[in-house]
């Protein structure tokens, strides 16, 4: 597998991994914000969106980042300043830790972790702590209410998310994301391997549950009760300004990108093309050019999935708190449990 002509020392590899991680998190975040939040939302609402900075407003994001960076770093007088300043870092950190296990090509991964998807779900849940203490440390009743709502919602929707993934893990027989990609691209549908076996077909129920749970975990509308601007100002983010607000903002859209990466690995075949197309039989035979093509395929799939997330966000009105909780506990969790049982029975039967 190591076919590089030059040997990179360990510190060089680590540096490249860090840079790769920054690109894999920040590039999707920036693209999502410009393409979907600035432009698509504007077109859906019959307006142009930002047009002044750069051609078609494409440099608007850089202008915004510059604006946020030069703002004063304000903490409320009665706030718990240390915790207040730490909270957005916890949220952003959990996003960067998430991308570590996502494979982008046969050799283009950060780490080959045997319990990859389990790790992603565990690390994804750490951001709840950041949100909760952000709400508390702001010394603001709206913030505290927003933080508590966010925690309640994130706990409720983490369960269907984990349970939806179990179906995929049962079918692939592995928790390693690289193995899940290979299993999909070498799989066959009733003996026909022309498309591989992307799990969005066999695990469609799991896919839908996973995407709904992702929508809720990202607190995007219709699940944006925690930052409901008409009643809570801006929820746990109310007191934040300047670059700490920017961190929450990047965290929100970067996490959307990373969760879309994970969903495309789990359900859409990840970086791979069906191996049969090029006569590959296992991971070792995959050509080297897939290390370039793989990230592009992943990026395309990520854009498709985040398009769906944003489309839903701009289209549907907000759930009420009780509807939101009832939907998680009484609909999603029973359905995902049934999905696990059916998947396990079919796995043993075939």
């Amino acid at each position, binding site marked *: 597998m190591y076919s590089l002509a030059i040997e990179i020392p360990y510190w060089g590899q680590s540096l490249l991994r860090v840079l790769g991680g920054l690109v894999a998190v920040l590039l999707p975040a920036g693209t999502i914000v410009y393409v979907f939040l600035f432009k698509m939302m504007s077109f859906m609402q019959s307006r142009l969106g930002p047009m002044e900075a750069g051609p078609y407003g494409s440099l608007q994001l850089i202008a915004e980042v510059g604006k946020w960076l030069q703002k004063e770093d304000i903490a409320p007088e009665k706030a718990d300043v240390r915790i207040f300043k730490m909270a957005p870092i916890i949220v952003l950190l959990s996003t960067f830790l998430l991308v570590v296990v996502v494979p982008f090509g046969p050799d283009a991964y950060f780490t080959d972790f045997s319990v990859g998807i389990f790790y992603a*779900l565990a690390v994804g849940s750490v951001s709840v*702590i950041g949100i909760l*203490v952000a709400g*508390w440390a702001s010394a603001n009743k709206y913030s505290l209410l927003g933080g*508590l709502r966010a925690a309640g919602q994130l706990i409720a929707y983490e369960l269907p998310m984990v349970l939806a993934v179990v179906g995929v893990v049962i079918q692939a027989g592995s928790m390693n994301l690289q193995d899940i990609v290979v299993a999909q691209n070498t799989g066959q549908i009733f003996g026909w391997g022309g498309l591989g076996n992307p799990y969005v077909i066999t695990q469609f129920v799991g896919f839908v549950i996973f995407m709904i749970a992702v929508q809720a975990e990202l607190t995007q509308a219709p699940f944006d009760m925690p930052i409901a601007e008409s009643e809570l100002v801006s929820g746990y983010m109310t007191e934040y300004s300047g670059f700490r607000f920017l961190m929450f903002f990047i965290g929100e859209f970067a996490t959307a990108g990373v969760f879309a990466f994970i969903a495309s690995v789990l359900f859409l075949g990840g970086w791979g093309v069906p191996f049969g197309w090029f006569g590959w039989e296992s991971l070792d035979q995959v050509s080297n050019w897939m290390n370039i093509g793989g990230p592009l395929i992943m990026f395309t799939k990520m854009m498709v999935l985040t398009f769906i997330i944003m489309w839903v966000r701009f289209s549907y009105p907000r759930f009420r708190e009780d509807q939101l909780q009832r939907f998680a506990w009484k609909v999603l969790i029973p359905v995902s449990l049934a999905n696990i049982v059916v998947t396990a029975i079919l796995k043993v039967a075939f």
Partner: protein
Amino acid sequence: MTTSITGAMLLAADGINIAMNVGFGIIAAIMVFAALSVVTTRNVVHGALWLVVVLGGVAAQYLLAGAEFVAISQVLVYIGAVMVLFLFGIMLTRAKIGADTDLNNSSWGLGIPVALLMLGVLVWAVIDAFGDTVITDRGPTPTVEISDAFLGPYLLPFLAISFVLLAAAVGAIVIARKD
């Protein structure tokens, strides 16, 4: 070439990974400091956050020992669920910002002998079980082995624990129900 040289330097002759032991020491020191901060801090929420550091340190130690699945479970269950529930509970009831004066109750001194007793039992158990055995660097434990173990020879304890948890869940529902 370079990696193999550093690898040889870090791996002493009898298969002990020195870098791993250094890492263990650093993480252990952080954990001890965080654990002391949990009981000495004057704010409940700060105490809970220090506890998060301790539990994260435990997960890091599991990773160093090659127990990947246990480490991730530690993060998912203790940091992602138990600590969030702790913070949730604290914030719903009493969570003042700033120092709290009445955090200690009158019998806090009793905790010290109990903690020392626990330490003694754990140290004795570890020394009794391993003694002078040198544990070499074995690499991570495959998750498949763990699942084979608890769905095979340990199936009965696994089911028993599930039953206990089910009973606890039913009990919680009975207590919470109004009618």
